[in-house]
């Protein structure tokens, strides 16, 4: 596997899941595939944290799950963003922007 892939920093997995699901409802496997694709294989999601994260977000009411049929006609659990989830996504995106701006400012000091 590509050596350039990096593990996700703590706390960013929730944000990525919310963002991914804001485009369309997906099942767990697709969420992990999508994150990997969009980040050009840089970000890899550990299944060991993906599913607990999905269940945690569901419990908080930011995403909700329903059983549907997958593209290959299998029963699969699809997650979609709720209204509360959308609000949360905005908050987290905002916070992330601020954080990265601040971090890059510090890094760019010469």
């Amino acid at each position, binding site marked *: 596997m590509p050596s350039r892939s990096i593990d996700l920093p703590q706390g960013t997995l929730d944000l990525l899941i919310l963002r991914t699901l804001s485009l369309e409802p997906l*099942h*767990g*496997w*697709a969420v992990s*595939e999508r994150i990997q694709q969009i980040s050009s294989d840089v970000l890899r999601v*550990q*299944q*060991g*944290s993906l*599913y*607990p*994260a*999905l*269940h*945690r977000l*569901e*419990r*908080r*009411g930011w995403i909700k799950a329903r*059983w549907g049929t*997958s593209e*290959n006609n*299998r*029963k*699969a*659990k699809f997650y979609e963003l709720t209204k*509360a989830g959308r609000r949360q996504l905005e908050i987290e995106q905002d916070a992330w922007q601020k954080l990265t701006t601040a971090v890059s400012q510090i890094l760019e000091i010469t």
Partner: protein
Amino acid sequence: MFLQDLLFRLRALFRHPAVENELDDELRFHLEQQTAKYMKSGMSEAEAARRARLEFGGLDQIKDGCREARGVSLIESLVQDLRYSARTLLHSPAFTASAVLTLALGIGANTAIFSVVNQVLLNPLPYPNPEELLTARQNDALPNLKDLQHQTNSFVSSGGVNISPMDFAGNGEPVRVHAAWVDGGLFATLGVQPMQGRWISAAEDVKGGPRNVVVSYSFWRDFLGADPHVLGRAIRLSDNSFTVIGVMPRNFSLPRELADVYLALWVGYPEAAPERVVHFMHTYWRLKPGVQLAQAQADITRADRRLAEAFPDPERERNTVLIPLHEFLVGNVRPALLVLFGAVGLVLLIACANFAMLLMARAVTRQRELMIRASLGARNGRLIRQRLTESTLLSLVGGAAGLLAAKAGTTLLLALKPAELRHWTAIPMDGRVFAFVFAISLLTGLLFGLLPAWSASRGDLAEALRENARTTATGVSRSPLRSFLVTAELALALVLLAGAGLLIKGFLRLRSVNPGFNPANVITMYLQLPGTRYPKIPMQNNFRRELLARINASPGVQAAMITDLPLAGNDVDHRVVIEGQQPPAVGTEPLVQTLSVMGNYFGVMQIPVRLGRDFTELDREGQPRAVIVNETFVRQLLPGQDPIGSRINWARNDDPNAWMTIVGVAGDVKHFGLNQPVDPAVYEPFSQNDEAWRKWMTLVIRTKLPQAAVVEDVKKQVWSMDSQIPVSAIQSMDDLLAVSVAEQRFNMLLLVCFAALAVALAGVGIYGMVAYRVNQRTHEIGVYIALGAQRRDVLRLVMKDGVRLALLGIVLGLAGATALTRVMVSLLFEVKPTDPATLLGVALLLAAIALLACYIPARRALSIHPVTALRCE
């Protein structure tokens, strides 16, 4: 938001199987998708599946993570663990039964003793605001009590009571009842209202007051037919008619006395009421709120001093000491109860050690299962939690079984109870007892479950696995925890055994004390002549003489009588002066027991007359007064003097004819108990006594005839002379002797039971350890035997560890025993708490038992056949 969260959790909890299935489906779907993806990129199906699974990681771990994320994992996994534990425990009934039984014994014994401690030491007395109640160590007289009441201001109220027998002639045989002669303040002090009617008022407690009586609940029920209209009814007590004015509630009893009827002292015994000298009332005092004991004591001491100045003759030595009532009642039993509670705590520790060892052995037999679960990704914490659930489940079941055992145990305790506990007719299990059982069960399960679980997670398990795989040739299981537990068990067992041994030795010493008389084949009975029909001494003595003559006329019966029997707990004391000796200051003359006898008392009781002569028929009315004293009297009051012919008199007796000549010296008699010192005593013939108030007598009858027949005959003789006189307190001298040592017997029996339990548990513990090791080393032993080892070599091999640990435990136990048995000092009679013979004896006994416990499983090693052992490989 909160509601949603709650619904979500509840769904997870109650729709548990559905949620679990969904999780399975979801994760399986993921794996399939991943596998399909790899197959698309050209891998074989097997390769793709393998790769996907590898990437996915531990399935159990992810599931745990999801459950935790759903926020129900704690309860959910607890339910899961419980279900799993219950299932696995039911699959190994032998293990479950031995664990539950072990704990039930330990917890049951603790609960039984705790119930007693709770009831006796912790529960308050059954009076309102019991912490305000005090009693005086000394008895007092009614006029003194009244004076103290007037001259102190620390008390809300106070009262006194004296218990005396009265005869109740209802229907059928006359019976002797316990009458409480009280002063009016008593019930205000105790603060209990009658169930019916009213209490005796202060206005009735005067000279010539009305003949009113308050009856106890049981008297009302048993003798008055629970008559609902009993108030105003007349009853006959000792030849007088009394009007019932009240009935006390069922659960009421006086603090230290048993009473059937209550009447004013002025009414019941007007002769004694105004006498200062007659100190025969127990007194009770209720503190004013906020007043401290020390203040009250100072207050009463001041009043005492004033009384002593006002009445120097009888009251010179006044020294009333107040003490909290609860302390007074339980002070004597507290040390014994605490020692027993400590002892039973040690039993529980031993039971817990066995429990822990059982759990460890089980962990080893279940290692495959644990290994598989661990390799499936179950985290260590989760495995420990599972095992804790199992041990806690076991200990709670053990606790419940223990509660049942304790219920039976307290019934047994009550049957054995010593006199000090007689007020507690039942030992109820209240909330505190249940809380105690629950707490120790939970603690036992968690603590002693954690110990092996923790030790297993730290490598004992790994060692056990390795051992079982026989990868190491010398794979000797020397689990340090197990060794520690066995050593500790034996040490604790030795401490208990030492305690029990000391109590046994003390008890045997006590029983071997010579009471001063021969108790075998002696029956005793108590009679009291009613003052109304026998007011004068000659009438009383005619009755006595006639009764003795009639009884002695039957063949095979030898009868005599005395006022107060040894070991019956009563006596009358007089101050005495001796002719020719400088009389001490008034009020400080020596006190001596004064006993009146009739008939051949010393002969019947087989009390030796050491010097001089016994009483004869001639020592009677009109003759010079003769007395016999005991050896202690001579030793203390006539040192270096020939007692025979010396003359004595009661202090301040001005009658010149009252001087009494000592005609004999009788052997000492243990009047107050085998462990009590002997007081100086004076015996005088009833026929020469000039105190008409000595209306009572105890018959002593030596006979080999059946007791019941003799008692019937005596009753017939008494009632043919006077049908109104009750015959009571019918008991053999042997029984009296047994009752007098009942408390020591109680302590000894209980501690012996606990020690036996402890030794049995420790024996099982060491047996289990050796058996386990023999099992583990079957292969090695087989090889050893194949190489030509002799029986003794094999035995030495397998017993070595056990014996070494046992000896270590015994040595540590000896050290512990010398330190701990000190707390028993007050329970021991003439035995030092470090009695070397006892300690050595119990150490040898325990060593022998430990050796046996090692030998039995070791013998099995001898029967190992080398070929079979090797084939196991």
